């Protein structure tokens, strides 16, 4: 053929030209700028800390690694961490998926009630939840234990303590699982809600029963959502420190996160070397979980999203409807209501005792603890403002980046994606310490400002923002924005008119998640907040170390009210939207 030679000589020119064409438009440029800032607030502090792993006092060294490997109980530390994270994530997965399925696909659903209930653990900052559970199930003074003992006494069984002990493996795993359930539940129900009902209907028509359909069609089709939920649960488990610290430590269960915090904040001078060495194990573990989730995602890529926002016909559970409902309600009572009740009782009672003086309950203690205390009030205001603003910045930035990553599958895009999710793979503590080292002193002098907290919160909760934004973007699909581009809309317009409204339910949910995380944050707050810039997490830690359970209970009660209101409003909003048919028709059909 005569054209072959010309074709061959074309090639280099073509390659070269493509490079010049890849200059980003204004939309991409803004996105890349945001991505650069987001990555910098994580990577720079991290680099600051990590260089210390190999570079101490101006010289290359393996000393920190040697010191870490020399920890006498390293083996049991790792094993305990692994057992705790795996067991609590597995339990949370089963509970979360079960609840989501009952709620989305069966007539056990009770409207907004069941929608919101499994998310209730979000209401309670983990540290408050852990305290609440201690108040309930402490062997001697635990309220629930005492009530059970009273009940057993009626049958002539006399116990002096127990029957339950929160400071045990089962207690710890259970409370950790309760806190991981919302991650699984949120993702699983979003997946189920968007699933094309025709997939399930086809299976039922092929003769498969309810549970066979669930197992062979529904769950595999929503595997990406389930994988995302499980990954979040694992991340949460690895990074969580307040629950294992309060419940696990007295039981002799020692996990990495607690040890890192101890080494950094409760040891003087701080053993940063060993803390960073331990973080390395966390990095490996979370990296493994991430890789597994990617594999699941790749396999489940072809799950289809419903057209026309169709809602599946719910499955009639028949006689099992009420038992299923009772199961859901029982879970909620057990996981959330009871600890909240314990907190409220103790805060109204004024001090912690199994013998509540029911007639003397009053708001005096609550009022005194929260609203008459200038520092606490200031902390509340600061936390709310930071949650509002930080959540907004985080989710909008993450949305733009998620869009960029979805549209451009270049190496750069993949790198940005990985970098944004990086904080999850590193102990929050480490990043917070890095931010402190980097920004508190010269030349920034941000110590004691709200800005340093904002930066810290953003850095820590970027992965959550990113995952929520990814889910929202993937729900919009390819053709709807393409139709907009062909209609002549520029990228900014396509973003504001097509992507944004379609992603809105997902973004609002993501914002709520960030808000709640930031308001209830303990990790960054412990390190970056002070008396000059108090936040709720900082106050809780102060109160906790001073040992005032009644005060702690009061503070937690107020937090519950705030996060609860946000959660209910957001849920009502996203439900309404998804009924309007915002779930888009995606893909070829």
């Amino acid at each position, binding site marked *: 053929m005569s054209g072959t030679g010309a074709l061959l000589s*074309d*090639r280099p020119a073509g390659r070269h*030209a493509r490079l010049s064409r890849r200059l980003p438009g204004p939309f991409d440029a803004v996105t890349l700028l945001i991505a650069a800032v987001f990555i910098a607030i994580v990577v720079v502090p991290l680099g600051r800390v990590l260089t210390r792993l190999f570079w101490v006092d101006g010289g290359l060294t393996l000393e920190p690694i040697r010191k870490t490997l020399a920890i006498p109980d390293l083996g049991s530390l790792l094993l305990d961490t692994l057992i705790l994270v795996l067991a609590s994530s597995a339990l949370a997965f089963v509970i979360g998926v079960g609840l989501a399925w009952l709620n989305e696909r069966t007539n056990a659903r009770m409207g907004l009630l069941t929608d919101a209930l499994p998310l209730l653990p979000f209401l309670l900052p983990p540290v408050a939840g852990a305290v609440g559970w201690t108040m309930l199930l402490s062997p001697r003074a635990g309220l629930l234990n005492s009530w059970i003992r009273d009940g057993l006494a009626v049958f002539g069984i006399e116990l002096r303590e127990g029957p339950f002990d929160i400071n045990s493996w089962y207690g710890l795993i259970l409370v950790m699982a309760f806190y991981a359930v919302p991650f699984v539940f949120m993702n699983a129900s979003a997946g189920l809600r968007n699933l094309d009902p025709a997939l399930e209907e086809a299976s039922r028509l092929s003769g498969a029963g309810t549970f066979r359909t669930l197992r062979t069609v529904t769950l595999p089709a929503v595997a990406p959502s389930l994988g995302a939920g499980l990954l979040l649960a694992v991340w949460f488990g690895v990074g969580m420190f307040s629950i294992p610290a309060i419940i696990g430590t007295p039981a002799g269960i020692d996990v990495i996160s607690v040890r890192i915090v101890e080494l950094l904040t409760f040891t003087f001078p701080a053993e940063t070397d060993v803390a960073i060495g331990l973080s390395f194990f966390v990095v490996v573990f979370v990296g493994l979980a991430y890789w597994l989730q990617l594999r699941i995602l790749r396999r489940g890529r072809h799950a289809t999203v419903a057209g*026309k926002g169709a809602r599946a016909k719910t499955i009639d559970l028949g006689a099992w409807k009420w038992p299923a409902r009772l199961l859901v309600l029982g879970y909620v009572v057990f996981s959330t209501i009871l600890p909240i009740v314990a907190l409220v009782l103790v805060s109204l009672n004024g001090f912690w005792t199994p013998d509540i003086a029911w007639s003397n309950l009053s708001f005096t203690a609550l009022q005194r603890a929260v609203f008459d205390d200038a520092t606490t009030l200031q902390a509340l205001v600061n936390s709310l403002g930071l949650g509002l603003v930080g959540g907004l910045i985080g989710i909008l930035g993450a949305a733009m980046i998620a869009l960029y990553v979805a549209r451009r599958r270049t190496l750069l895009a993949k790198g940005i994606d990985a970098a944004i999710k990086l904080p999850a793979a590193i102990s929050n503590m480490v990043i917070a310490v890095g931010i402190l080292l980097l920004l508190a002193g010269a030349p920034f002098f941000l110590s004691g400002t709200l800005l340093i907290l904002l930066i810290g919160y953003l850095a820590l909760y970027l992965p959550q923002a990113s995952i929520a934004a990814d889910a929202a973007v993937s729900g919009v699909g390819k053709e709807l924005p393409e139709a907009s581009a*062909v*209609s002549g809309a520029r990228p900014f317009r396509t973003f504001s008119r097509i992507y944004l409204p379609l992603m809105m339910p997902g973004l609002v949910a993501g914002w709520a998640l960030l808000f709640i995380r930031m308001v209830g944050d303990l990790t960054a707050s412990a390190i970056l907040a002070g008396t000059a810039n108090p936040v709720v997490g900082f106050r809780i830690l102060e109160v906790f170390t001073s040992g005032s359970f009644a005060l702690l209970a009061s503070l937690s009660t107020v937090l519950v009210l705030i996060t609860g209101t946000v959660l209910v409003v957001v849920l009502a909003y996203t439900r309404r939207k998804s009924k*309007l048919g*915002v779930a888009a028709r995606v893909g070829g*059909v």
Partner: protein
Amino acid sequence: MPLDETTSSATPVVEVKNLIKRFRRESGAVVNAIDDVTFEVAQGDFVVLLGPSGCGKTTLLRTIAGLETPDEGSIAIAGRTQFSSREGIEVPPERRDISMIFQSYALWPHMTAFKNVAYPLLSRRGRKVPKDEVARRVREALELVGVGELERQYPGQMSGGQQQRIALARALVNNDDLVLFDEPLSNVDAKVREQLRFELVSMQRKLGFSALFVTHDQTEAMELAHRIAVLDSGRIAQFGSPQEIYHRPATRYVAKFIGAINESLGTVSAVDGDTVVVDTGHGRVVGALVGQRVAVGDRVAAMWRPERGLLSREEPQAVNRWLGRVKAPMFVGSHTEYLLAVGDVDVRLWSPRSDLVDAGAAAWVSVAPEDVRVLPLDGDGRRADAERPSAAPAMVTAS
């Protein structure tokens, strides 16, 4: 090559040159979804890209829309270069001033029909359409496609056919010179499809836009097209009017893909100008060449359409006549299809008469030499066989 022509009625609306688009499969293998494609769409033309699933139709359409970046070649719309690998030009889709209808309609679920249709009017750069004009033109477009009463409905509240009409209105509202269609009728039921097809043709003829229409349905292609481009594994096998494609197929692949056809394989025994004599398993076949050259001894296929054959009980006076045995006459209303075993092949024949011969009887088949196409086996023959492994020396129908 400099594009110095100015826009005039002679300038093609679309000009695609040597376009190549490669995809890397999950397995790592590289496929040429578009393989050196060159073609033009003239002003007011209705061009259909026709081919089986996976032959690259959608990819070709998407590269023209700017939704996919080709690897090599160039694309010009109305004389302006939109893509050129050599000059390093790539115009984004929003600046190409074209409209497209997606297979899934791609109506925005959070907007009413009115807002969906108004969107292109409000989005194009460099032009501010006043509010009342927007309303007027949207209503006009909705009336044009016959769904004026749906303007306040959301896509989720419409039937597939109605959504299709809204998508059409959205594509037409801007009066673009070029409208791209990606199998827009494949998701609606047969009755609606026929109706929409009919309306689409009259609309296109009336409004005068150029259309590039992707389908795998040959009937649809025949009905709609001024010209058809038959695609075969990313290449254009033939580009011509429906009549040309049907009566003068350039390759065996095209012949087999469009309509029903009889095929006998054999060896060329004599060539005289465009007339060729072929020795086949059931005797001598005299046919005509279309463009190609063959020499004595070449392996070729002699092909002819079932409606061109004649059936008789007595031996006819014809150059091509073969005795066969009737397997089964099949009455299908407008005609009767007779299936005959002739030598080593099965031959299909359509006749308006249903009482010519009975099953099991012997009968003569004849066909005029000018109705028989002789096509070389090499080259595309491999493709055609690969496409339909059961096609061997027998009857092929594409439907």
